[in-house]
């Protein structure tokens, strides 16, 4: 087991280097230096001011020097200082924003798990039935709908017309003065729509995978033999089939991280959530190179961790699969 984990970790290292190289190259191929937004078309700045800012940010070095500087700092998880006027360390800015993005993503993944698995199982067991058809359409609707559109519709319904839920943000204005329970309730009310939406739109992948796995498993010989033994159908389904079908679904965990992160840009913008997705978008628009590379690296890193956890979890859970 340990050897397996170590092997997987070692596989991760060149991946990380590859990631850093690709993101660095991408950014430096891009036209538009980072100081442009601050001084361009600003009647109060002049060429001298700009040159000063350029030297200040270290952009006058040759490109391989810049990459080496970046790589050696990345190894220490030091992503440097953000190019934006506040000049704070990138790691600090990311650390501020990660919790809320992770919270929403973890909660929605949990929601997806809770709903997708039974949905997939029943769809498989009752393949072709009305239930199967309806759930397929529902699940795919979530997948097919432009998320910001649905978000606005729900905001109008629950926020403006019914006034049940807040429209955007993650805390009410008087959050600071609430007690612990009050704070929890407030946070829950604010996150309800985003999590529901993220869950609804992400349901399809998991539930369809569950369904197709279940379908495959049901076909297997050992299920037929369980039935032949005279076991009640419920036991056949839950005890035998499902347990085997669920396992591969765990591997999807790691794969869903990049998609969830990518989707967070839209979510966080429409719901005014100060998370990593929003930060990335701002970084791109202001050519904040260290920030962009930092977030891409962290994102890829999170994916690697997700994959690793999923693989290990799968190996642990399935006694048949024992890695050498």
């Amino acid at each position, binding site marked *: 087991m340990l050897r397996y984990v170590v092997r997987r970790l070692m596989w991760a290292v060149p991946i990380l280097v590859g990631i850093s190289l690709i993101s660095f190259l991408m950014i430096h191929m*891009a*036209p*538009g*230096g980072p100081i*442009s*937004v*601050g*001084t*361009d*078309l*600003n*009647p*109060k*700045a*002049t*060429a001298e*001011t*700009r040159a*000063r*800012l350029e030297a*200040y940010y270290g952009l006058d070095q040759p490109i391989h020097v810049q990459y080496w500087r970046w790589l050696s700092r990345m190894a220490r998880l030091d992503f440097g200082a953000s190019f*934006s*006027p*506040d*000049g704070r360390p990138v790691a600090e*800015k990311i650390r*501020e*924003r990660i919790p809320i993005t992770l919270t929403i993503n973890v909660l929605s993944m949990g929601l997806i798990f809770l709903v997708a698995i039974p949905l997939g199982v029943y769809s498989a067991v009752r393949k072709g039935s009305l239930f199967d058809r309806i759930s397929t359409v529902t699940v795919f609707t979530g997948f097919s709908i432009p998320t*910001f559109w649905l978000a*606005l519709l729900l*905001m*109008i319904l629950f*926020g*403006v017309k019914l*006034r049940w839920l*807040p*429209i*955007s*943000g*993650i*805390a009410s*204005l008087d959050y600071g003065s609430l007690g612990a329970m009050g704070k929890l309730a407030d946070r829950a009310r604010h996150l309800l729509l985003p999590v529901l939406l993220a869950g609804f739109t992400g349901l399809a992948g998991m539930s369809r995978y569950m369904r197709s796995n279940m379908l495959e498993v049901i076909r297997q010989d050992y299920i037929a033999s369980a039935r032949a033994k005279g076991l009640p159908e419920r036991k056949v389904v839950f005890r035998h089939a499902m347990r085997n079908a669920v396992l591969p679904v765990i591997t999807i965990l790691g794969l869903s991280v990049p998609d969830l992160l990518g989707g967070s840009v839209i979510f966080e*913008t*429409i*719901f*005014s959530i*100060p*998370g990593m997705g*929003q*930060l990335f978008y*701002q970084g791109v*628009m*202001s*050519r904040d190179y260290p920030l962009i590379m930092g977030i891409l690296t962290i994102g890829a890193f999170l994916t690697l961790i997700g994959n690793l956890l999923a693989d290990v979890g799968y190996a642990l859970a399935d006694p048949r699969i024992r890695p050498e």
Partner: protein
Amino acid sequence: MNRPLRRALSQSIVMLLLLAACSGGKPESAGKAAAVPDVPAYGDAVVEGSIGDISGFLSAVTSDAASHEAAGYVFNGLVRYDKDLKLEGVLARSWEVSPDGKKITFHLRRDVKWQDGAPFTSSDVMFTFQRMIDPKTPTAYGDAFKQVKRASAPDPFTFVAEYARPFAPALESWGMDILPKHLLEKYPDISKSPLNKKPVGTGPYRFVEWKTGEKVVFDANPDYFEGKPYIARVITRIIPDQATMFLELLSGGVDTMDLTPPQFARQTDTAEFGKSFNKYKYTAAAFTYLGFRLSHPFFKDKRVRQAIAYAADKKALVDGVLLGLGQEATGPYKPGTWAYNPNVRKYPHDPLHAKALLAEAGWKEKDGVLVKDGRPFEFTVLTNAGNEARAKTAAILQQNLAEVGIRMQIRTVEWAAFINQFIDKRDFEAVILGWTISPDPDQYVIWHSSMTGPKELNFVGFANSEVDKLLEDGRSTFDLEKRKKAYFRIQEILAEEQPYVFLYVPDALPVVQNRIHGIRPAVAGITYNFIKWYVPKALQKYRLEP
């Protein structure tokens, strides 16, 4: 807090959403006040919405409008613009300009304290000046201060700035936020100081907290030298999406925001809306234009530029893009201000006249497209992505020009790429952009022939020796009449030469929840007297602990 000055320090890009034209006179409000005793009372909070997060509180080292507006609650400059856009003293109770125009003496107020209790003196002004010209300070606003030949603080309440030559825009530059020496002197780079995140100023509001990406909170400063503000708390909520912000307005999550023309004209025309909100409208300090690269073979010829000006249907632009909430622009100045010349050559929509001019310039019509020397009249106009108003402007102009046989392609580029690849490298044929108009009429950096270097702002390449001289004259005297003459003549020349086709000046369209009283619309807008806004006791929404 001083909105016109803040705008003078910001970029035009931020005018994205603040599109509305202004109509020169006093703005109107549309709405009813509630029937309760209208007596100023202390208390309540005003919640504003902001699309962008702020990046810091020290205006010298930030350049976005959101940051400058936030800083305006906490800091003051020596001067600011009043409701009629005339300079008035804030931290300076008065000033004199020497007869030769080379020396400005500021007499500072004696009753001002920093929010931590320390007294405000001329050494703070001196300190601010030194930092503005210090190379270690990453500021974009140092140039006006570099013109100072010598600065001195003869006593704690007098500050003197001497210039090599009379420099009229200098006065405006002293609207820059004055920094506390005692809190910043140990930081060689003020952008790295804690004050950039936790400001301490002399202004009407004290900083309470800043949750990045979420909100900024200020509480009223009870010792403010102009009197304690009535509104006890100001909260700026960061809401990156316009649609979301509007929904927040409807549900009471924000109290004020800037509306887009369709929102102003249609979405909020119901009686329902009028019951809870007051809408305001005033001429914004910005204009949108179509700029030509003057070295381009097509646009070198003045007649071509004038023809395009005749072909452009500015009324359709005002009606279509601004829904009538604005006015046509004839030059780079805000109508209704002292430097604005209403009597320049105008270009009403006249496709026939346009065609005649183009024919004169050698263009012949062939199958609906103009051709000269075998080349069809086709060009690409660039503008920045994500700006709805500019995209609509481009679409209308495309139709206008097609009518006279000119084929204009539209290309939108994301802002940072736009500036770097095209503007800075002068790699464009024509652009649709806008400028914010600062109250001081000096526009040297935009029109002077020396400002055509890479990354400088005369990117169209305008060079007119008469205008050059007038620009120099205009900025080197404090005599209002002399300046006015110079700027009037400049506008006449610009109207004749059309280096830009000046398109429109939008209206600003703020809306405010109507429990908030005390708003007095003026030429400068509505926020110049924010410290006098109040909510009558009975209508107060946010109960705050004292």
